[in-house]
Structure formats: C-alpha cells, structure tokens
C-alpha cells in the first residue's frame, strides 16, 4: 500500500482574523451543561465544538462521538491582553521601535545589512537569534527616531525652489529624501509611496472579515475613532456606507462622478479619497503617509542646516515588569503604564519590512498578534469532562480556566458599558490578564498558580505539553500499544535461543489477523471452531463487509461454518509466530529482538539463558515485554533484521554478545579439562540431546580393553567440520608479557586453544571460547558459517554443558570456603604483620619521621601507604586461600573459567574482606576524631578506620559489620545516582545523533545533508561486521593461504 506522507509542518502565530475564521462558534457563556444535562448553547462545551457524549451529534460536522475530531471556538476578549509567552519579546520590540511611527530605530543601511544576515542564516537553516539579538541591542540604543519628526513650523517660502535647483545641496537633499522611501514630485511635494493594500471595495458592503477589519482599523488608526471597534457596517443607499455603534456613526459617501469617496465624521469634518476603478469594482485605497507641508519644511531645514535629516521623536524609556506589565517613563520621571491597547497600537504601526528584522515572518507572525484580542477555545475533545461515579461531571482543567476567563471578560464588559471608574476597569483588566496568563502557563515565576478547588495547581497549556509525561514525550514520541504482554521471565535451556516460551493464557489473548484464502480456509474454520477458550483458536472474526464479530462459546460453531474467503480471522498466537521481545531499560538495539513463539504451560515467559546478556536479564524476578507484529511487512522486517541469530554480534565492539553463561561455561570447562576419559555409553549419554551421526574414532582403549573418548573429542563433535581457530583462553597467564615463553599446545594450564578442522586439539573451553562478550568460537562460527550455525552451536554447547554438568555434579556451598587450620593461621599471621606495619607507619608519622611523597601532604602520604599495605595484605591472604582451596574447588573453578565470580569474591569469603572505603579513602567520618566510640580519639590504626580482617565465612565483628555497611551504602547510592545520570546521558546522545545516516555515497550526513563524516568511521566498515573492530582478519587469511602463523 502506498501511503501518503505529511511533507512539512509550518508554524506561525494565529491572527485574530484567522482565529475567528477557524472558529466554529463564539463562546460567551461560562457555563457548561444545563439542567437538562445537555450542553448549553454558546457555552464552553457547546455542540459546535465537538461531542464527547455518546449519542449526541456534532453541530458543525454532524459526526458522532469518535468520528468528530472536535472544532475550535473563540472568545472575543473585551480588552486586549498580552500573550505571556511573548511578553519578553513584546518588550524588546517596544524598545527597538519608534514610539511614534513604529519603525525600527536603525538606519536603512543597518537594516539592509541585518536583513541580509538574517537571510543568510535562514538559507543555512541556522539560528537567526544571534542576529536578532544584535538588532534589538542596537536599536534600543537609539534614543531618537530617524524616520518621523516633530514638526515645527518655519517659514517655508523659497525652500521649494531651492530643492528643485540643480545645486549640490538640492541633489544631495533629493537623494537623501529618496533614500527614506519618499518621492520628490515635480512641485516638491513628498509623499510616501502609496500603500497598495486595498482598504475596501466599494461595489459591495465589506463582508469578508479581512476587509471589514481593514476598514475599521483604518478608522481607528488614522482617525482615532476607537469606538468603531465593534461597529456595524451597513449600506444606507448605493452611494453611502454607514459605520455605526450605538448612537455614534460616521459615513462614507461616493461622489456622483464615482471618482472619489468622502468620509464624514461626527464633528462635521470630512476627508476625501480618490477611487480607483478595476473592472466593475471600485477600490478605495488606504492613503496613510501623506507628508504634510510642515514635515517637508522640517526635513529641508535640517538638511540645509547641514545636519542629519534623522532626528525627531525622543524615545522614552520603557520598563518591563514580569510577567506582563510595561511602563513608560515620562520626561518628568513619572511612570505611566502602557495598557495592552497602547502596546497593540504601537506594534500595529511597525511596517512589515521592519518586522523581518526581528526574525519574524510578517505573513505568519505580525507583532500585534502577540497581543490577544480574540482567544481560541480548544475543541471539547481536547478537554473532555469525566463523569464521576456519583454522576457528577468533573471538568477538565482547561475548561475551568476558560470559565474563569469568560466570567472576567463578561464582568469587564458590563463594568465598562456601565461607565465604571478607571480604577475598577484596570483591576478587571489585570485579572483578565492573569487568567489568560495562567491559561497558557500555570508555572510562571512570580505569579501564584491558579488552583483547583481542592488546592491542586491546574494543569494548563504549557503543563500539558512539557516534561516526560507531557504531550510531546508522553503521548506523541511514545504511546501505549495493543497486542503486547508482560510477565516474569524464567530460564529454559531446552528451547532455542531465538525462541520465547509464551504462557498459553497470554497466547489466547494476543492475536494475529489472518486473511482467509482458499488455501487456509479449512485451517481457519478449524481454528474458529475451537472458539476463543481453547488454545489454537480465534477471538474475533471480521466478515468480508468489515463487520467484526466476537467469537463466543455460543457462536463459534456457526461462525466456522459461515467463514469464507475474504474474511479475516484474529487467531491466537501459535508456535512459530514471530514476536518482538524486550527488556527495559532498552539501552541498545539488542534490547528488542525477534523471537519465535513456543506456547507453553505456566505463567512466565521462558528464555534461553544464553540470550540473557544482550537483554541484561536475569531470573530474579525480571519482567519482559512481548509485542505481536500485526502486518506482514513488520514480520518480514523483524525476521530479516531482528532475529536473535542475526544479532549475535554486538555492534558496540564487533564480538558476540550472546553466549554461554554460568553453568554452560563450567560444564564445558570440566568436560574439556585435562584428558577425561569416557566410555562409549558415557559419551553417548552426554551427547544424547545432540543430533549427531557418528562419534568418531576413539582416542584409545582403557585398561579393561573398552574404547574411550576424551572430553575434548566429545566437545569437538559439536564444532562444525573445517573450523580452524587458535586463541588464548581466559586461564592464560600471559607468560610472554612476563618474559617467559608461551608453551602453546603444551601449556600446563591448557590456556592455548587450538582447533583444527573442527577438532579441539589442545586447550580447555572457558569464557573466552564460548562466553558472552568474548566467545571466540561463536565469533568464528558466526562469520564463517552464519547466524544459523552459530545458533545451532550455542544450543548444542549449552545442551552438552548441561548434560555433562548433570552427570558430573557441581555444587558450591558454605563448606567450599573452608580453609584448613594451617592456612587460617598463615592468613591471620599475615594480617597481623600488616597491622603491625601500619602501626609502625603511624608511629613514624607521629614522630615526624615520615617523608612526604612529592605533591602530597604528610597525612595523605600516610593514608596512601596504609591503604597500600592493607590492600597488599588482603591480596596475599587471597593467594594463600586460593592455594588451600585448590583448583578443584568449585569456587576457584568458576572464577578461573569465568563462569561466575572472581578471585576477589573468594578471598572475601574465605580469607579476609579487606579495607572498607568511602570515596576511595579509609572511613574517617563518625564521631569527633574517631569513627566509633569503641576507639580512642585520633586512633589511625587499621581496625579503627574500617579494615575488616575477618572473612565473610568467619563472620564480622560488630565494628567490622558497621564499617562494611558504610562501604556498602556508598555502593548503593552510587548505583542509584548512576542509573539516572547515565539515563539522561543516553537520552542526550540519542537525541543528538539519531538523524545521522550513511548515504549511498558512503558519507554520513544529518537531515540538512551536512556531511558529518566523508567515510563512516574513516574506513566505511560496520563494526558489527568487523572482527572485534578490524575489517579484515589478515592473520587468518595468511594462515589459510600459506599456512603461516604470525
């Protein structure tokens, strides 16, 4: 299916006209529902704005609940108010423009320069704020306007002639005047170019909103007739237009010759305008900037005085008080408040070309639109009310806020019409402003948040959008989904690594829609016949006409019979269905992989332990999520990209991330260690779960004459034939680095793993061979044989390991940490010695004999030496313990093979827990000069500063226990802080880099096609296809081509 795409989204401010235009109806009543329980007309939830009650129909689109998306309404504000979000910007604009003429206080040249800069930034898709900031800064500096002047009358006689003279003064003057956008006509009358905007069309009563507004605005602006704001326009006869409100009226009349229009004002004065004819329509143009004689004289005088022609109105200082108050400081220092009407008037005067200097697009955002005269009312569907159990309606926070606004608006109007005192009007205005402010943002610093009756602050516009739970992050970037399940996970080594065990209960709930065709008709019939209660059944059936029918106990038989080609069946999840499996936190792409379903009894998801590492899962109560794919495309994509076996190699470091853990490693370690011999029966028993044809030649015969096979041979059975590999295992002690010779195949620790033609020749299998993150064998099989082979190998290896470990038996208990008496004595002697050494150090320090290390204070030096000494003591104790435990000890075995735990863990259990620390230092805090009251003041000895000499097995003394808890607490706090820090870190990284992609030319680019890298990673190699970061394994090629080992 070819889908339509949204190509772009444009942002802008809503103009009052546009708000009215998109409004489905005016809202004037603050009430919601009437006594009859139906929405009140012209009310806040009126049915023109959409419906949220079942059964009702929308009065605008006729849709029912769910069909009608909702429609905006509007509130006509009795007085303009500032939009809080733009209050700061409004202030900046006010300071940057002339208080009189509205032009930006910059010379034409500067303007041109800034406009050019802004354009350049725009072309680069770069931020324009830097330039705009500069504009505001520079413009605000100018105290005098260079565009409009105070007019003072002087004798103008003779000046006209001078201007027309071809003198140098005359031409310079002319040039400069023309620069300002004026024209010099023949008889030296200057006038601004006529604003081409049409005022109104005479052929009909101005009926569209824009034209009407233009006319009224013209009257308000140019003739200061503020009362016409809500005036009615009507036609008296075909030659006269009447604009009236109440008892006041003005008239426009067309001359008999139909070539000019006369405006008759109340005071008897009249003005004439020429009329322009276009087709059959007559247009009256808006003549704004007619330069008066006085002005002309003024300009001339200035030029003749050899002064700048720029000069004029002194700019008064404007003060801004948060959140939405502006004040102008008069010459006498008195502050006069600028009401939103004043502000709006000033903003209106700014010409479009100057608006662009603020980085604004005058078509989409005129400055005066930041002062609201009309308020859009969001559709009811965006603020649904909820019905409480008591049947009472509880309205949305936005509705509450709108109620407040309408109430105040109403009161304001009433008071004003009644001619209330200015003080009261201003108070109400302020209140209206407050409500509109909090309607947009209820967390404005400095003003109290609007509260619900219960005292809870209301969640208004801004609060709805922002934050994690806000619209953007909470409802648009992430959504709740259907067809998903979540439950606890538990291990199942008998299922494949790319499978997931799904409880039947869940399988019956989650469905996949299947189109019924001639080929699956019978199968689907059978499925439907089984109903929704029996497992491989179906929950819904969709008929050919699109009607959806639930499969119930009473209708499944009949539905099955009726079922036909073209129907759709929503059948249960069955074995082999592909699903997505996920564990949070989803830190990398391997946190969501595709698995195949295995429906099972029980209530948990079953997961092969080998896939725990990519999910970072364990079975101590972890829960995971499962998502059922609903389209064929999604399933195909999941199969090709997300299957577990395709993601065995981590893109982070180019090595396997799926692999054996815990017992898998121990099992194979034990199996392949040394030359364990197995007779045929034993060998076959260990290999019983593995699909093999032959065991191969026995390694020899036992003393009783029966043939035997070695553990290495048994392991070799699961290796693909032809596999060649050599590497050093985890047990390798890096002899070469210590200047010793590597014994290779003859390594006494069996650290040199050599595989030739699929046979394990030497070495023991440990973490390095099959473990996750390392897994050399898995790595090689994946590269040479592919994901399926690697998957098969992991499965076989895990079965082999479990079978062997089952046979051999393996346990680890408290008695495994036992150390013979002599060992204990040695350890305690060692520690005592160390403690004495510490004492000596302290004595030396106190005697002032200690030499400070360079760049260290004496005290720091002492601490450092003590820490070193005690650390060494613990390590040595561990070595002794290790010696007495022996390699056969389960713990040592696990630590050495890399299955679980470390030598340090064993040391702490068996020998000595060691020094506890807070922030890398010995424990210092507590009482004055001491950590606990059990010690003397100023005691610096090992045990007084958190050295735990006991082992976990022996048990800790009360003081030791306490110190251990201190150290443990730090670890806990650390983890808690780290998760939140790294979470945010990751979010930022993802956000910054998510749009980068490799293009077809091999470059890495972002959305604006800026090249970030010319070749990805400098060599164009995908790390997940590399060998631990290297694109070509040269050693391997050489070995295979010429048998050289380098």
């Amino acid at each position, binding site marked *: 299916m070819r889908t339509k795409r949204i190509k*772009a989204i444009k942002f802008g401010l809503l103009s009052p006209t546009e708000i009215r235009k998109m409004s489905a109806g005016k809202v004037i009543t603050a009430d919601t529902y009437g006594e009859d329980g139906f929405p009140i007309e012209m009310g806040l939830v009126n049915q023109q704005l959409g419906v949220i009650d079942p059964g009702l129909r929308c009065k605008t689109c006729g849709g029912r609940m769910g069909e009608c998306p909702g429609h905006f309404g509007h509130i006509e504000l009795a007085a303009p108010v500032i939009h809080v979000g733009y209050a700061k910007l409004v202030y900046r604009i006010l300071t940057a423009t002339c208080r009189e003429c509205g032009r930006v206080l910059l010379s034409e040249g500067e303007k041109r320069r800034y406009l050019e800069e802004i354009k350049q930034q725009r072309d680069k898709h770069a931020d324009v704020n830097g330039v705009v900031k500069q504009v505001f800064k520079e413009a605000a500096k100018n105290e005098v306007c260079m565009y409009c002047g105070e007019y003072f009358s002087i004798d103008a006689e003779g000046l006209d002639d001078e201007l027309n003279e071809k003198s140098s003064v005359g031409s310079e003057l002319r040039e400069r005047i023309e620069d300002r956008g004026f024209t010099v006509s023949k008889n030296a009358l200057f006038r601004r170019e006529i604003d081409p905007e049409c005022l109104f069309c005479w052929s009909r009563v101005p009926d569209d909103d824009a034209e009407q507004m233009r006319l009224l605005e013209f009257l308000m602006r140019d003739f200061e007739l503020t009362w016409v704001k809500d005036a009615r326009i009507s036609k008296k006869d075909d030659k006269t237009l009447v604009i009236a409100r109440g008892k006041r009226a003005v008239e426009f009349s067309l001359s008999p010759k139909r070539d000019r229009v006369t405006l008759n004002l109340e005071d008897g004065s009249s003005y004439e305008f020429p009329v322009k004819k276009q087709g059959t329509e007559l247009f009256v143009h808006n003549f704004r900037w007619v330069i008066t004689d006085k002005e002309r004289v003024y300009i001339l005088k200035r030029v003749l005085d050899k002064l700048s022609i720029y000069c004029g109105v002194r700019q008064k200082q404007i003060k801004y008080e948060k959140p939405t108050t502006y004040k102008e400081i008069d010459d006498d220092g008195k502050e006069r408040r600028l009401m939103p009407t004043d502000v709006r008037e000033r903003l209106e005067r700014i010409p479009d070309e100057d608006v662009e200097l603020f980085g604004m697009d005058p078509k989409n955002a005129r400055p005066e639109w930041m002062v609201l005269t009309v308020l859009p009312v969001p559709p009811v569907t965006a603020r649904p009310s909820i019905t409480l159990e008591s049947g009472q309606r509880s309205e949305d926070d936005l509705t509450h806020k709108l109620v407040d606004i309408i109430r105040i608006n109403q009161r304001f109007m009433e008071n004003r019409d009644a001619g209330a005192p200015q003080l009261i009007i201003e108070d109400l205005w302020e209140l209206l402003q407050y409500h509109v402010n909090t309607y947009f943002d209820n967390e404005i610093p400095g003003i109290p948040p609007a509260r619900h009756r219960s005292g809870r602050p209301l969640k208004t516009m801004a609060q709805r959008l922002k934050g994690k739970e806000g619209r953007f992050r909470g409802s648009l970037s992430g959504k709740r989904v259907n067809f998903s399940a979540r439950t606890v996970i538990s291990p199942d080594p008998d299922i494949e690594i790319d499978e997931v065990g799904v409880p039947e209960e869940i399988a019956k709930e989650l469905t996949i829609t299947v189109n019924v065709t001639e080929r699956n008709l019978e199968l689907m019939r059978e499925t439907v016949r089984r109903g929704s209660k029996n497992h491989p059944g179906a929950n819904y059936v969709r008929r050919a006409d699109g009607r959806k029918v639930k499969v119930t106990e009473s209708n499944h038989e009949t539905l099955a019979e009726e079922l036909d080609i073209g129907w759709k069946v929503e059948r249960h999840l069955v074995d082999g269905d592909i699903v997505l499996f996920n564990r949070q936190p989803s830190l990398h792409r391997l946190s969501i992989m595709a698995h195949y379903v295995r429906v099972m009894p029980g209530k948990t998801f079953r997961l092969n332990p080998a896939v725990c590492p990519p999910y970072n899962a364990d079975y101590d109560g972890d829960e995971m999520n499962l998502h059922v794919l609903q389209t064929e495309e999604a399933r195909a994509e999941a199969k090709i990209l997300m299957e577990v076996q395709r993601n065995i190699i981590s893109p982070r470091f180019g090595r396997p991330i799926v692999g054996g853990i815990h017992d898998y490693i121990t099992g194979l370690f034990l199996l392949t260690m040394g030359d364990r011999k197995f007779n045929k029966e034993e060998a076959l028993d260990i290999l019983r779960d593995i699909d093999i044809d032959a065991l191969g030649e026995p390694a020899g015969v036992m003393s009783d004459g029966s043939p035997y096979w070695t553990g290495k041979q048994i392991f070799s059975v699961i290796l693909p034939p032809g596999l060649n590999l050599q590497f050093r295992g985890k047990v390798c002690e890096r002899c070469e680095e210590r200047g010793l010779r590597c014994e290779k195949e003859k390594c006494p620790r069996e650290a040199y793993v050599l595989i030739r033609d699929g046979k394990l020749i030497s070495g023991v299998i440990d973490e390095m061979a099959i473990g996750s993150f390392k897994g050399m064998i898995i790595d090689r099989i994946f590269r040479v044989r592919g994901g399926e082979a690697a998957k098969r190998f992991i499965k076989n290896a895990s079965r082999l390991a479990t079978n062997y470990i089952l046979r051999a038996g393996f346990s680890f208990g408290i008695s495994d940490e036992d150390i013979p008496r002599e060992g204990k004595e040695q350890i305690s002697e060692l520690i005592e010695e160390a403690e004495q050494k510490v004492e000596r150090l302290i004595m030396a320090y106190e005697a002032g004999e200690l030499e400070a290390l360079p760049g260290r204070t004496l005290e720091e030096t002492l601490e450092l030496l003590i820490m070193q000494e005690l650390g060494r003591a613990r390590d040595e104790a561990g070595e002794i313990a290790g010696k007495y435990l022996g390699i056969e000890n389960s713990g040592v075995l696990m630590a050495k093979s890399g299955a679980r735990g470390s030598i340090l863990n064993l040391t702490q259990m068996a020998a000595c827990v060691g020094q506890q620390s807070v922030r890398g230092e010995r424990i210092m805090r507590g009482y004055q000069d001491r950590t606990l009251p059990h010690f003397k003041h100023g005691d610096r000895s090992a045990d007084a500063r958190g050295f735990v000499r006991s082992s976990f097995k022996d048990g800790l003394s009360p003081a030791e226990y306490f110190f251990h808890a201190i150290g443990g607490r730090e670890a806990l706090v650390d983890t808690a802080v780290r998760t939140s820090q790294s979470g945010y870190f990751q979010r930022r*990284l993802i956000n910054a880099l*998510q749009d*980068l992609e*490799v293009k077809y030319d091999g470059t890495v680019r972002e959305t604006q096609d800026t090249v970030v890298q010319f070749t990805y990673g400098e060599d*164009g190699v995908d790390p997940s296809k590399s060998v631990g970061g290297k694109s070509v394994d040269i050693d391997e090629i050489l070995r295979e081509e010429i048998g050289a080992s380098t």
Partner: protein
Amino acid sequence: MDAGERDIVRALEKMGIEREMAELVAEDFNVSELKAGRDELLALGIEEHYADDILKILGIEESEVKFSDIELRVNMSSLPDKIKEELKSKLRVVRRKLSREKLDSIVDRAEREYEKARVEPREAVGIVAAQSIGEPGTQMTLRTFHYAGVGAIYITLGLPRIIEIVDARKKPSTPAMKVRLTGEYASNRHKAEMLAMGIEETHIRDVAKVESSTEDMCIRVYLNERELSRRGIEEGEVIDKIKSLDMPIQEEDGKLKIYTRNNSYHELLRLEERVANMLVHGIEGIRRAIVRKSQDGEYMVYTEGSALKKISRIEGVDFSRTTTNNIAEIADVLGIEAARNAIIDEMLNTLEEQGLDVDARHVTLIADAMTVDGEVKQIGRHGLAGEKASVLSRAAFEVTVDNLLEAAIHGETDELKGVTENVIVGQPIRLGTGAVELVAKNYSELR
C-alpha cells in the same frame, strides 16, 4: 639484547659477518626470518655489496616476490590505509613463502573481506553510536578519581568524565597536561625537574607570609627564605613584583611594608589579597608539576592545571607531543581537527580505563558530530540537540514550550526529515528500511 639475539649474533659472527653488522641484523630479525633475503637487509640500511656478501655467506637465495612487489600490489588494492600497512608488514615477514599468484590471491581475499564488512547505505549509524556509548554508561563507575601515574594528580574518570567531554565544557573539572620534553630535558631527571619547578605557579603567598596591619595601615610581607631557595626564586624577583604594584614600599630586614594610598581599611584588605595572590613565578593555572618517567624511558612532566598556549613557549618542551585534557583549549590553540582527535582520544581512554570495549568508529562519529561546524558543540540542549532544524524534535527533547513559541515567531517549517518528527506525526521514519520505498505489484498485475 636478549638471549635469542645474542645467539644470532654469535652465529653470524661464526659465519664471518662483522659483529657490528651482525648486531644490526639480529635486532630486527629472528633466525627464521633471516632466511628472507636481500630486501630485508637493505631495509636495515646495510649497503648493497655487504648485503650480497651476507647472503652469500649464509647461502640464501633470493625469493620470487620482492619488497617492491608487495608494496605495489597492496597499494593498488582498495583497502583502507591501516589495513594496507598491516598487510604489508605481515606479508614482508612471510615473503619467502609467497609466490606472485599467492600474493594476488591474498590481497584479493582481503579486498573481498573488506568489501563484505562495509556499512550498508541508509544504516542509522548515529543511533548505533549513541547506544554503543550510552549503554555501557550504566556500567561505569561514578566519581572516580585516579592518579596520573603513581603521582599525586587527580583526574576525573568514568561516567563523569565522559559526560564532561560530551558537554563540551570550557574547562574540565580536573585539567591536566602531559608535557613531553625534548633532548636533554627528556633524558636528564634534574633538568626535567628544573623545568617542572619553573612552570609551577608560585604566588607570593606560597613564598612569604602576608599580613595586614591596621596599626600602621600597611601590608607586611615576610619572605620565607627556605621556600624561596627550594623553588629557586630570587628574593629580588618577589620584591620587583611587589614594586610593580606602584605603591609606597618600605624595606627593612627581610620584611616589606606596603602602604595604602588613602588609608582606608577596605583598600588595605583588598591590597592584602592582591599582594598574596600575585604570581611571582611559573605559569598561571599550573598548580602542580610532577616529573615521571614515561613508558618509553623518557622523563616527562605531568601537571595539574592546564595552559597549553603558555607551555608551548617554554624551552625544553616538545610541544608536538604535549597534550592536555582540556578540549576547549586544544580547539583554541591547535584548531578544530585537533579538538576532534582529542575528543576521540579522551573518550577512548576513559572507556578503556573502565574496561569497556567500544569500537572507535562510534567514538569518531560522536566527535565528528560535535565538531562539524568548526566549533566544539555540546551534545544537548545548548548544542547539537538544540540546533537541530526540526521544531518538533527540539520540542520533544527539552524546553518544549519555548521552542514552539520561537518556531511560531520565526515562521519555521518542519520538513519532517528526522526520526522524532516522523514518530510524532505517526509515519515511518526515513532511516534504514524506512528510507527505501518498495511497492509490491498487485497479484493480478503480476499475472
């Protein structure tokens, strides 16, 4: 010279090769490789006729593939430089086993493997890189300080350090330099220590006691002779410095009195502070400098505090090998490419120190993204994420409301090219499989 080398030398001497020459040969070759031939010997700088002599003595025949053949064949391949170098050096070692055909087949195979390992177009490498760095973040330690060497210099490591790098801070929380030295400075401990002493910042308060006396309204400075001599500073230097204040000064037996101009307590206290903090010696910002021997046996200086520009002018400093962990400073002094490399180095080193394996390619991508515009930009609100072209993406990241208000004013257009934007409007993203358009033909059309 180890035992093996000595054996070779002895063997060669026995065969009549001069000792000096034998040692030269033994240094780079083991016995089996010595069988290689002429080119290898020439590469050692042995003169041609000597080489021929040696070969004659050893009875070695020239092999089919020459050094130049390897060089030529490998250079002709499409492999990346690093692989070429590795391949060349490894081929040289096994040259005697090669034939021309074998050489061809080896290089061809390497090329094939390289081609196989290449990224596919439309791969969302940015996300993979971000995940690869972010995912191990949970495994990193928090608030670790570490010493440079055994010395006393603390350096922030682990997650805080990574965040610091990515934040493009003007100054790291623990600035530090590794100053490499030239010539004698690198081999002579004493000279290195003198240099270290010379760059360590020394304020008057470090070498003298500074007191204010309200009694006679002056500042008294008592010089500490021991400290002065320890740091190798002349008394005169300090006095000159104080004189540069241009204040009335009185000197009397090891004590200096500085008088204020207008006898105000306020001025007295300010002056005291000013005098105490005057730099007499060293480089401002370098709080400590410690000499250590590096792994290659040279002496070098570790510093606490960083001043790359100033250190470059110090004699004995090998500026080309000197580094700092202050990335902003590197960008400032050495330029953006150096800063980019510094980001990569610092990140990789921090990750490695934590024992985390992350492919360098991911790190390079992050470093490149941070530096594309020619200045080091932060990953976050005030950098990359905040300057994205998409309104919706910015709004979804942080400061939602302000971004929307701004967008309206500027009349911005969101062209829905990125990931978040498309997720928000509910359409497939333009990456990976989402970027490819394939329309299946209708079943009927096929027939």
